[in-house]
Each structure stands twice: as C-alpha cells, then as structure tokens.
C-alpha cells in the first residue's frame, strides 16, 4: 500500500499512480507480507470455503453429489469464460481512452446534483475491484470531491459498474435481467449522494493513512 502515495502529488498524477498501482505489479515485490495476504485473500478464502462446502456435500450426500455439483460447474464456466475475456478486453481498452484524472474538479461540495451525476457516471465507468476503487475514492475526496459525490461514486461503482455487469451479470443472469436490475439501480447512486449530504455526521477525508512513507 505504501507505494501508492509515495509522493504527495498533483491530483491527476495521483490518479495515474493509483491506476498504475492496480494495473502494474511493480509495487508487489516490495509489498510487505500483509499486502501479499490481502492481495490473495479472496483466492485463499474462496478456496477454503470451496473445500469446506465440498467436504460437507461429501459427508451429507456422498461422493456422487460432489460429482454432480462439479458437473454443474463445468458448463457454467465454459459459458462465462468467453464473455469474461471480452469484458476484460473492453475494460482494458476503455481505460486507454478515458483519463480518470479529469473528473475531480467536477465533484466539489458546490457542484449540486450535477456533481452527483458526474460522480455516478465516473463510478459506473470505473473498472476493477475494491483494491482499485477505494484508493481512487480517497484521491477524489482529498482533491475536493464532497461526501455526497464520494458516496454516490462508491454506490454507483458497486451497484452499476459497467465492467461487472458486462463480465459477470450479463453472462450469468442474462441480458434481460441485467437490464431490469440496472434500470432499478441507476437512480440509487445519486439518491444515496443526496442523502449523504444531509446526514449529520462530521467527516473529513483522512490525511492519507496510506501515505506514511516507510522509507
């Protein structure tokens, strides 16, 4: 994590630093052990849960049920794979076309609902998992985006992120369901941002807990 904010920098520069950090593996070699664990936590936890669940299925329903489950998993994997590859290529190419640094100035406290709209669009366009998004969010907040915009950005990314919809939701659940869900989710980011601006809890962006230089 410490490589992320090595230098206190221009917002736009910070953006590319955050983007590079997620895309590139340059920091991985220097990352301390907890960083390694966190990076692979998903895989480790999933493997553990899969093993436990398989054991339970074996114990409760016998080895035939384990095979039955695997028989169901295989075609699903083959179905998802081509869509996933296409979705990732789409995300990787979009990233070259849209410079994320251009957005911070539009999302200040005085930006009104227009700032929320920009935040919602930016959130939807942000590809990748939480390890990419939350560092970007912190950069946004410290670059002047207000809490409404930040909340709107997070909710829009989590709920309506285009990459997730294209890579996971459409292949697995079908285009009709994905469209229905997207329609229901579209207004919620802006709504959450409007509510967040009225929640009476004081908050200022943390002075970069990630920035403390270790060297």
């Amino acid at each position, binding site marked *: 994590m410490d490589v992320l904010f090595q230098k206190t920098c221009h917002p736009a520069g910070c953006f590319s630093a955050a983007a590079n950090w997620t895309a590139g593996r340059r920091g991985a070699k220097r990352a301390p052990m907890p960083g390694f664990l966190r990076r692979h936590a998903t895989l480790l936890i999933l493997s553990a849960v899969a093993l436990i669940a398989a054991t339970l299925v074996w114990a409760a329903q016998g080895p035939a049920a384990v095979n039955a489950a695997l028989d169901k998993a295989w075609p699903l*994997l083959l179905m998802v794979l081509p869509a996933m590859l296409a979705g990732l290529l789409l995300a990787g190419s979009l990233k070259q076309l849209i410079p994320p640094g251009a957005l911070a100035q539009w999302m200040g406290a005085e930006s009104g609902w227009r700032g929320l709209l920009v935040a919602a669009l930016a959130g939807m366009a942000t590809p990748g998992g939480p390890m990419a998004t939350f560092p970007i969010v912190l950069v946004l907040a410290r670059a002047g985006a207000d809490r409404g915009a930040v909340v709107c950005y997070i909710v829009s990314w989590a709920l309506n992120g285009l990459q997730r919809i294209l890579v996971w939701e459409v292949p697995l659940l079908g285009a009709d369901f994905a469209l229905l869900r997207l329609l229901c989710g579209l207004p919620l980011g802006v709504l959450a941002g409007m509510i967040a601006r009225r929640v009476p809890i004081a908050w200022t962006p943390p002075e970069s807990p990630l920035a403390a230089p270790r060297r």
Partner: protein
Amino acid sequence: MTGGQVLLGVAALGVFLLAIGRGGVPAGRRALRDTGESIARVLPVMLVAIPMAAFLSQLIPPQLAAAWLGPESGMTGVLVASAVGGFIPGGPFVSFPLVLTFIKAGAGAPQMVALITAWAILGIHRVLTWELPVLGPRFVAIRLISGAALPVLAGAAAQVLLPWFPHALPVVGR
C-alpha cells in the same frame, strides 16, 4: 454463445480498435497488457468460485429459496433479500453464481434485484476489508445510512417494472 456475448465481443473489439486509432500501437499494447493482468487476477478466482458456488447450492435446499424469495413472496421476499444480501461475502464471482442457483431454484426477479443491490451497496465483507481502513468509521456510517433503504427501493422498482421484462428470468424460461 448467446446474442449478448456476441455483442460484448464486438463492442470489445470495436473499443480496442478505437484505442489503437486514438493512441497508436502503444495504446493497443497497454490495453492488451491491462487485459492480460486482469485475466491473471480474475481467472484463478473464477476457477475456484464457480465450483464453490455449485457446492454451496448443493447444500442449500432449493425449496428454501423458492419459499422465502419466490415470485409470490412479494415485498416480504424483497425485505428478506435486502437483509440477507449484505451478508453474502466476496465479489461478483461469488454473488452472481449464487443468484443464478437461487433463480434456478425458483426465486423471483424483484427479490433477486433486491439481493444483488443489498450485496453491492451494503456488502459487509467489502466494508470491513476496504472502506473502513481507507476512509474511516465516520465515513462508513454516513455511507451505510445513505444506502440502507436502497435495496428495498430497487426491489420495489423491479416489482413495478417486471411486466415489461417477461424474459428477466432466463434460466427458468429455457
């Protein structure tokens, strides 16, 4: 291959060519490198997650999902889904295969919309791992208060919109 997948493939190639047209060969190379890195990150997770979801769904009695989250469960089902969704751990590689197994077991579309919305907005796993350490407890409080009612809203909206989406439950119809 479904129509949606073909469309996605065409869109991906189109944007890829656009990136090359705009930024030249280096941009294309960067796009491919980003894509390769994403694949290296996502593929192993998916190879584990999909069998995991299959095992989990083998353990969940389908009647349970149908009874609590079926199309007839109405707003009660939406409320249940909104409450349960926040506790589904992990990323889309867990939630969407799980939702698929729920749908196969007879869950309703509005209930699944509420479930996905609750997982996305309130997912406790993501809050604890990322939001809390990066943005702090006060921010988490603000955001959770702002988002608490949204899954129910989304489920209600889906209930209203459902007549326009007769094919929203793909697996059952096939």
